[in-house]
C-alpha cells in the first residue's frame, strides 16, 4: 500500500482538468499509468473514501475527489461512506461546491 501514490493521483485529479477528463472517460486506463496495487486501484474506482482515509490519505483529497468525480457527489452520501448517518441528522460540510 502506498498512500504517497494515492495522494499523487488524487492531487492530480484535484488540480488537472485534463486528468479529470481522462478519469471520467476511462478511469481504469487512467489509473494504469500509476504504480498502484489492485486494492488501491479498486478503492479509487469505487470511491471508497473510508478505505482511502484508512490507508492514510489526506481527507481534504478524499472530499475533493468525491465532489469532483464520484457519481453521487452529494455530501450526505460521502459522510455515509465514513460513518452511520441518521435520517434526521443535520450534516454540515466544508465542501466548496453545493
Amino acid at each position: 500500500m502506498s498512500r504517497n501514490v494515492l495522494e499523487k493521483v488524487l492531487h492530480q485529479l484535484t488540480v488537472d482538468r485534463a486528468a479529470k477528463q481522462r478519469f471520467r472517460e476511462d478511469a481504469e486506463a487512467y489509473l494504469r499509468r500509476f504504480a498502484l496495487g489492485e486494492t488501491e486501484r479498486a478503492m479509487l474506482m469505487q470511491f471508497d473514501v473510508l478505505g482511502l482515509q484508512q490507508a492514510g490519505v489526506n481527507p481534504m483529497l478524499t472530499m475533493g475527489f468525491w465532489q469532483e468525480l464520484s457519481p453521487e457527489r452529494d455530501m450526505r452520501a460521502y459522510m455515509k461512506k465514513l460513518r452511520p448517518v441518521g435520517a434526521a441528522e443535520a450534516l454540515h460540510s466544508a465542501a466548496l461546491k453545493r
Partner: protein
Amino acid sequence: MGKIVGGFLVPHDPVMFVAPDAPAPAVRDRMWNAFKTCAARLAELAPTSVVIVGADHYMLFGTGCLPSYLIGTGDVDGPLDAMPGLKRGVIPNSEALASHIAREGHANGFDWAVARALTVDHAIAIPNQLMVQPMREAGHAVGTIPVYLAAGVDPYIRMERAIQVGRHIRDAVSAGPEDERVVVIGSGGISHWVGTAEMGKVNETFDREILGYAERNDLRALAALSDEYILANGGNGGMEIRNWACAMGALEGARGETIAYEAVPEWVTGLGFVQLHLQ
C-alpha cells in the same frame, strides 16, 4: 528600519462564501461584522505591507514538493479556488519587502521556499479580500505578502518552528526598508474537521484554550501542544493554529484582544477574531 505595527488572527472559512445563509442571521452578521471591524482596525494601523500566513489545502502543492514554509516574493494572484463572492484576480504585492525577507532568511538559517509568481488559495485570498482590499478601495497603496506554512498537509511544520519563522519575519522587517509598516495576519482555525467523519463538529473548549493563549501571547503553551492533541481536539483543520503561532511569534509580547468568537457548525468551524496589540 521597517517595523511591525500590528497583527490579527482571523479565520479563512470558505463556507461563509458558499453557504452564506446557513447560520442564524444574528450569528452570520456577527461574523461578517467581525471581519469589517478587523478591516477598519487594519486601516487605522496604516500598513504599507500585510503578511498573510496561511496553509495550503492540498491544492497549490502536491506530493512532488511540500514546502515547510514558503513566501511569495513576486507576482500574486488568486484564489485558485474561486467561489461566489471570491473572484480570481491580481493581488497587489510587496515584492521588495518579500524578497528582502527571503534573502534575510537565507542568510540567517531560514531556508524559505520561494514562489516568484504564486496563485494563492482561499487561505490568503479571504483575509486579503475582506481586510486588505477595503484599504485599496479607499485609495491606499498596500501590498500583500503570502506566506504558507505546512499546516494542512503533512509533514507539518513544528509549532516551535512556526513561531521561529514569525520571529524571523519580525527581525527581517526590522532590518528592511525604512518606510515599511507591516501587519502580520495569522489565517485559519480554530477547530474544524475537513473531509473526515467528524466534519461539522466544533470544539469550543479547544477554541477558547487557543484564544486564551492568543490573548496572553503564551507562545510556550502553544509550542507545547502536541500534534496528537491538536488533531484529537481541534481536528485536521485545527493544525492551522500554526499560522496563528507564526503571527504571534512576529508580535512576541503583544496583548491579544478577542474581537469575536463563535462556534458555527453550519460553517464547520469555530471562528475566532483576535487583534494583537503591541505593548
